[in-house]
């Protein structure tokens, strides 16, 4: 980790506004990327993003190992997203899974730049909540089933079974837009 980043974190711990601005500029892109994956909509991801950053700045003084700030902020964002998911889980379950086709067809981005990723993101966003969380946590962010079970307050078996079903659903939807992720 760069010395400058360590100094930046230390300055943020001292509640230095300039350092906080720099810290935000340093992490905003990748953290919003995480939020976009976990949220269903962009507006929801912005909410999670802002809430997570506020938590990060308020709890930064509890960070003991400054070298692990990257994983710490990422974990903070994911936990905020999970909290957000828990709060709104009942409302979200009203939203159907059928929107995938419309979402994938409405992409107008450049075919050679963001289209592929946005299409995949669109599919992930429209997955049922449980599947979306597990796929993000396990397949993209690399958490183990034990950690996922703890974070989502479910059993490891549930985590595994949801991953299995979610993965099949994801592959099926990826295949519809031209991605065959099998051997």
């Amino acid at each position, binding site marked *: 980790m760069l010395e400058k980043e360590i100094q*930046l974190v230390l300055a943020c711990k001292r509640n230095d506004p*300039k350092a906080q601005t720099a810290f935000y500029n340093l992490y905003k892109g990748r953290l919003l990327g995480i939020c*976009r994956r976990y949220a269903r909509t962009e507006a929801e991801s912005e909410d999670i993003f802002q809430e997570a950053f506020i938590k990060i700045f308020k709890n930064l003084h509890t960070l003991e190992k400054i070298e692990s700030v990257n994983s710490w902020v990422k974990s903070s964002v994911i936990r905020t997203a999970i909290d957000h998911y828990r709060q709104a889980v009942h409302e979200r379950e009203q939203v159907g899974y059928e929107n995938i086709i419309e979402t994938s067809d409405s992409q*107008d981005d*450049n075919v050679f*730049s963001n289209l592929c990723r946005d299409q995949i993101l669109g599919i992930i966003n429209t997955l049922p909540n449980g599947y979306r969380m597990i796929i993000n946590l396990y*397949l993209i962010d690399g958490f183990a089933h034990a950690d996922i079970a703890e974070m989502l307050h479910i059993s490891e078996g549930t985590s595994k079974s949801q991953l299995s079903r979610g993965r099949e659903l994801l592959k099926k939807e990826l295949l519809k837009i031209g991605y065959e992720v099998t051997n």
Partner: protein
Amino acid sequence: MENHKEDILKKFLQDTFSDYEPEPKDTSWSTIFSAIQPNQPTFWGKIKPYVASILVVLMGIWLCYNSSNVEANNLEIAFNFSEQAGIIAIDNVPKSDNSQTEKIQQHSDNGQTEKVNLNPWSKSSIIKFRQHNEEEKVDENVQPETLATHKLLNGRVGTLATDEKKELAMTEYPKEIIVKNATPKEELESHPTVEKWSDKVVVSTDNLTASTSERVDKSGRLGTLATDVKTIATGMENSIIEQVRYIRPMESLRNKDFTLTKIALNSPMITPLTTLNREAKPVRQHTYLSMSITPIQTYRILTINNNNVQNVQTSKLFDSERNGWQFDLEMTKPIGKLWNFRTNLSYLRMRQWSEYQVSTDELVLRNTNYRNSNSNSSQGASNALEVVGQTVTESKNLHMVGLKMDVQKFFKITGRNRYFISTGTQLMYENTQKQSNIFLNVSGGFQYIVSPTTFITIEPIASYSLNNFNDSRSVLQANGYNLGLKMGVSFKVK
């Protein structure tokens, strides 16, 4: 096996989102910052006091400017004291501009009139007037209000009966409000230089009273201290002064001409923080490299170094004797959401074939018999001298290298298929004859996405040689148009 598949999906997703860093909204940071630094003013919080100060100053300037105009419309009171204390009338006369300027006028026998202005912005409206006649004798036992009422009731202004006037006055000014003097009268009375106080009251038909406090000091000089204007009808609350003082500014504010100067705020430039030397990631614009081949070529560019060409035998558009292919190495770069710029290096190899006739030195006399079609009996013969022509057939391989640039526009994207049109130009150089050819290209087609990094393109292409516009006689350019079918495969390289 399952784990292996899972790993592929995992790797695929992780690769897809490894560098995914979207840009948050501009307002996000201000929201976060205000939450974590509640005492730290934001940019707007910093400039807000200055803006408020500027607004206050501008408002003050505006009010000062307008107060001079209001002064001109102040309460105008005309007093005229007659030798006999008698009929006094105070008229509430609106000015012609409907500014509701009250005019109090006392009619007297000699008709002298003096106008006094009341400033509605001062706390105490002091009416200065100069007394032209003898001071009115006031019965000290009679209270000013009673006197005023008495004068009002005995007034002979207008044709209204006294009761009617009173009723009218009560309707218009139902309450009594007396404008206070700046200095209490009791204090002045106790002043060692003041010897006598006297109050004067003038009464209007609409129950307006102007009362003047005067003193006679010990040296016998008469001075005016203040003048009150008040309404005297029972239950009166609003006096004219109150109207002038409080209502008129509101009238001004309600005026449609009232406008505030628009303040132009220039946001200061905030230099970005460069605490860290972390490179800002650009928006990902992948570049694709394509290889394609166009097996069908139809145009014919053939140089004939012979000025004796009599005619050229045109050939079919598609001729098995004249065919070729073109290989393109193309780079595609996105320039917009649905626009791409394409440039390529191309190599064309084509077999050219042409048949034409050239004139020779030999002449032949041709005898032709004919029969007149109108008359069966009319027959004859004619002799014609013809140049003997020689048929020449040329065949050679054409090799050209070219540089092409065009723009591509996607007009429909459905699932794996992307439909597009494109247009551009191509410069091709033929080394043997040192001939450059410029083509105008138009094409349309579709792309089929095989994988996130690979797609294939089928692109029917039409081009036209702009060299056909020149008048060179040595270049044979039949079939300047070209039709081809370009097929290619593209890979993401960046």
